[in-house]
Every structure is written in C-alpha cells, then in structure tokens.
C-alpha cells in the first residue's frame, strides 16, 4: 500500500476517507430520523387481500388530516396477502406498525408470540373493530333455485360454492355461520352435524381460498350459490353486470376483522403515536363513511343506519354464541379431528 507514496494517491485516499466518513454520517442521520427535527413517519399496515382499496382511501384522507393536526408527514405502506400468511410474516419479522387482518385468530397468533400486548382487543373502541362484515349468499340472476335461507342450501340439486375451511378464513367463517344457523334456531348439535355434512356434500369444489371460490362461481359458472363476505359479495354482484344477485339470509355470523397496533414494532420504531392516530382515524365519521363506501359495516350505529339500503338488518351472531371463543370454535369444528374432518371420512 505505502510503496507508492506520491501526492496523488495520498490526495485520493483523503478524498475516499472523507467520502466514507460522510456516508457514515448520512447513515447515522438516517437512523436518528424518527426522533429528529424533520417530522416524518413511515407506517406499514399489514392487511389481507380485499382491503386494498379500503385502506388506500383511508390512507389518503388520514395523511392529510394528520399532517394538519400534528404537523407530521406520514408515509403509508400497505402489504396484502392471505390473512394468516400475513400474520405469519409479521411473526417472522415483517415490521408492521399495525395489522388489520381478517380474523381474530390471526391477530391472536401474533399476540401469542409477544409482539402485541395481551389485552389488545380492549385498547381501541368497539373491541378493536372499526368495521365488521358477515357472510351472505350470492346467487344467479333471478335466483332460479329459490334460495332464501340456510336450509335452502341443502335442497336436492343445489350446488354450493365455498372455500375449504381448513385453508381459508372465509371458508371457516362460512362453516361457523352454517353451524350457527342451526343451533341458534333451536337445533341440536346432531342436527347441526347433519346439516353441515349435507351442505359440504353439495360443495362440488373446495377451493383453497376465497378468490379461487369466486373464480369458480363467477368465471367457470359452477354452483348455484356462493357463500361470500358481504363486502366481497357486493363487489362480485356489481362486476357481474346483472348476472348475479345478493340474498340475505335471516341469520349469519358477524365477521370481525380486528385492527391492532403491533406494540413491539411501534415501540422500537418510535411510531406509536402516529400508528394509533391512524387506527383511530378509521373510527372517525370520515373513516366510517369510507368503510361503508367499500361495503364494510361501520361500527358507528348512526352511520350504519344511514346506509341501511346497502346493509339490510339481519341477526348477526357472535362466535361466542356457538363456542367459547374463536380458538375453541376452530378446534371443535375445523381443527384436526373436528366436525369438518368427520364429514369426508370414507367410513360414513
């Protein structure tokens, strides 16, 4: 190295050293940015598939509102995918500030790993639910099979499209809903088993996820009725241009896509304040209107009533009415050796 001590090399070396020092300095500045003078925060919202447009609208309004209120400029990033795939990503280290997943089980799984504090569900209004949804029916134009209620699904010749409860959140929610439609109207456990067994016998294809089931029903024109989340059912019917219709059964499950702060991430990234404001924004009148626009039922009663035309009233039951809680329902009905497993057992 030192065998060519000419001025040129020495000069160059100084320049390189300066560059390195400069770069390190920049890096250091970058690291200290969240606490620094420049009021800028970046948030990552890890969500599930069909909420892409909903959160994009919410983000846009929130960014403007929050900058006006606190002077902090927020950049929002969204990540979408299958709900439990997203939960696994967060567990494995995806640095989500907030999670807005489809099922309690997914948020709970993250909480069980210690990333979200145990009492998370009570930290935000309405049990951390800015909006809810439910499972309803989509049928072909004119409803040729006359499907109005759950018992109609097991009439001879009716084919039902619903995804596999083992691999899809939509799938198990539909299962719970079908189960509840029997036991909450006076049926016994045996009646419910008989009902769901017959129901799944009339399912010609068990798609692995909600999107696959929609494709099967809409594009491939298989089946007479599609069990779908209310918000997706609305979009499905709108896009089908008169080929499909919505049917509201008198009773269905309340779908609860909880939202939560990922405590360990917001504390480390120093983003708690903005992240909490972000989630609370979904509860404001403005946020609730956006939810309604995307066919999610706002938890604000007044705003829900205002949109009664798209959200007809029906008996929405909670998971606790058919099981102890979500994990218990999952274990009893869907898990290994549960009711669902016995349906397909060849020994029948």
């Amino acid at each position: 190295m030192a065998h060519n001590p000419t001025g040129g090399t020495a000069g160059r070396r100084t320049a390189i050293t300066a560059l390195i020092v400069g770069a390190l300095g920049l890096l250091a500045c970058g690291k200290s940015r969240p606490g620094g003078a420049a009021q800028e925060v970046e948030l990552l919202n890890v969500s599930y598939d069909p909420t892409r447009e909903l959160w994009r609208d919410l983000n846009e309004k929130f960014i403007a509102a929050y900058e006006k209120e606190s002077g902090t400029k927020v950049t929002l990033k969204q990540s979408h995918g299958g709900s439990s795939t997203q939960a696994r990503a967060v567990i494995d280290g995806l640095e989500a500030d907030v999670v807005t997943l489809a099922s309690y089980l997914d948020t709970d799984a993250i909480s069980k790993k210690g990333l979200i504090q145990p009492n998370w569900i009570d930290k935000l209004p309405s049990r951390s639910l800015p909006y809810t949804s439910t499972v309803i029916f989509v049928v072909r134009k004119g409803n040729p099979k006359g499907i109005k209620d759950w018992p109609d699904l097991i009439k001879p010749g009716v084919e039902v499209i619903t995804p596999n409860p083992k691999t899809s959140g939509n799938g198990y929610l539909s299962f719970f809903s079908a189960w509840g439609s029997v036991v909450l109207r006076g049926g016994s456990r045996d009646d419910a088993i008989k009902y769901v067994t017959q129901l799944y016998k009339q399912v010609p294809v068990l798609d692995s996820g909600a999107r696959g089931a929609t494709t099967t029903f809409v594009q491939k024109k298989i089946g007479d009725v599609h069990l779908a989340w209310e918000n997706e059912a609305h979009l499905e019917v709108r896009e089908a241009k008169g080929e499909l219709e919505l049917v509201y059964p008198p009773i269905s499950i309340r779908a609860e896509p909880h939202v939560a702060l990922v405590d360990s991430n917001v504390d480390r990234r120093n983003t708690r304040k903005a992240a909490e404001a972000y989630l609370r924004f979904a509860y404001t009148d403005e946020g609730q209107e956006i939810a309604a626009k995307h066919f999610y039922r706002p938890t604000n009663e007044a705003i829900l009533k205002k949109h009664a035309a798209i959200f007809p009233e029906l008996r929405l039951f909670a998971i606790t009415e058919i099981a102890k809680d979500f994990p218990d329902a999952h274990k009893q009905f869907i898990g290994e050796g549960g009711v669902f497993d016995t349906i397909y057992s060849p020994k029948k």
Partner: protein
Amino acid sequence: MASVNRRVLPGFSLTLGYTVFYLGLLVLLPIAAVFVKAGSLSLHDFLGAVWTERARAAYLLTFGTSFLAALTNVVLGALIAWVLTRYTFPGKRILDSLVDLPLALPTAVGGLVYASLYVENGWLGRFLVPLGIRGAYTRLGIVLVLVFVGLPFVVRTVQPVLEDLDPEAEEASSSLGATRWQTFAFVILPTLYPALITGFALAFARSIGEYGSVVFISGNMPFKTEIAPILIVARLEEFAYGEATAIAVVLLVISFSMLLVVNLLESWSRRHDR
C-alpha cells in the same frame, strides 16, 4: 515436480469450496431446518400429524398422480424430442421454444386455465364431459396439469441425446437387415434409456412438490382429490408449524428414496449399456 496439474482450469479447491458453501446455504440448510422444525414434535405428535387416514390418502394421491404424469411425460416428451430433432418443418423454432413455456408460466395460471378449459362449459369440457371425461376437479385433472408442468424436463433431457445419436449405427442396423422397428427398439432406445430415466425422475420430483396448479384444478376434496401439500398449507393456516413441517418431512423422505431408486436404476442402465 512430482505431480502435474492435469486440470484445464486451475482453482479446484476454490470452486469446490464455493460449491459446497452455496449448496449448503441454499439447499441443505433450509432442508435441515425443515427437519429441525419437525423434530420439535414428540414422536407421538409427529405420527399424529403425518399418519392420519386423510394424510395417507393424500400421499397416495400425490405420488400416484405424479408417477402417472411422469410416465406420460416420458412417452410424450420423447415423441416431441424426436420430432424436434429428426424433422424439419416450418415453425419448428417456435415449437421448440414452446416446450419451455410451462417453466416460465406461474403454475397457478396453468392450473386455472386448465380447469376453465375442462369444466362443463369450457372449450374442451363441453365436448368431453358429455362423453364422461371430466378433466376439472378430478384426479384426471391433476394428472393433466402435472403432465403440463413436467413436460419440459423430459424433452430437454432427451433432445441432446437424440441429437448426438450416430446416424451410422442406424444405417448399419438397417443394412444388416433390421426392420425400422428393430432398429428403433434395439439401437436407438437403449441409448436413450439413461436420458429417459433422468427425465422421468425430474418430472416426477417436480410433480410431487407442485402446489399452485393442482389446487386450482383438483377441487381439493378430502380423500378424493386432496394432495399432500394442501394438508401442509392447512396446518400452516392454523399456525401449527411443527405439524406442517412434519408432513413435509414425510414427503421429502418418500420422494428422496424414490429418486434414489431412480438414480440407481439410471446408473445401472448406463453400466449395462457400455
């Protein structure tokens, strides 16, 4: 100098180190992690996860359809390779590059397209279903997509061997009075065996792990058309990592032993040949 370096390029130790390091990092380490994760279960839990009736039905289906598909590919792939090497015709280049397409296409798209072709109102289904041939949501459908994803492997292993085939051997055979069939069966086919077996093994291995295309065409009915990878995904959905990887381990062990057999067969046929 006692030893002369006979290698064309220097740096054997460096390249070997590189090879071992990267194979270890990219292949062995993840596979070892699968075993370790599955090892977190007790033997009882492990068996409970991997040896249910439903899982056994799924293994049988996965290996059965993969075997059938690989076998079909050996016949179809050899035929395609034959046509591509032995004949000239317009559009040959295009046809040749079409062979690789299944590798580039996301398999989920392949599965979706196949399913919509073979459903009752699909382009092919409307003719086949009245004849009683149901391609979508049946085991036949699974074999169909597996043939699709495995095809390039057979074609691309057989093609170069066919191209290198010595025409004089064929000429000698026919000038000695062999019929065309005899020439094919006793002169051409034996030299193709190793390539065919390799192609079979590759297509077979590819099929066992195939998930994307199969979930779209199989219908996923337990005990009927549910493949083993679906069970893995089902357990992952429940955050049961240990159980999921346990099923993966079973798949790995079975397929590894099958590939081992195929490889032994291949080296035996090579030796037999020379």
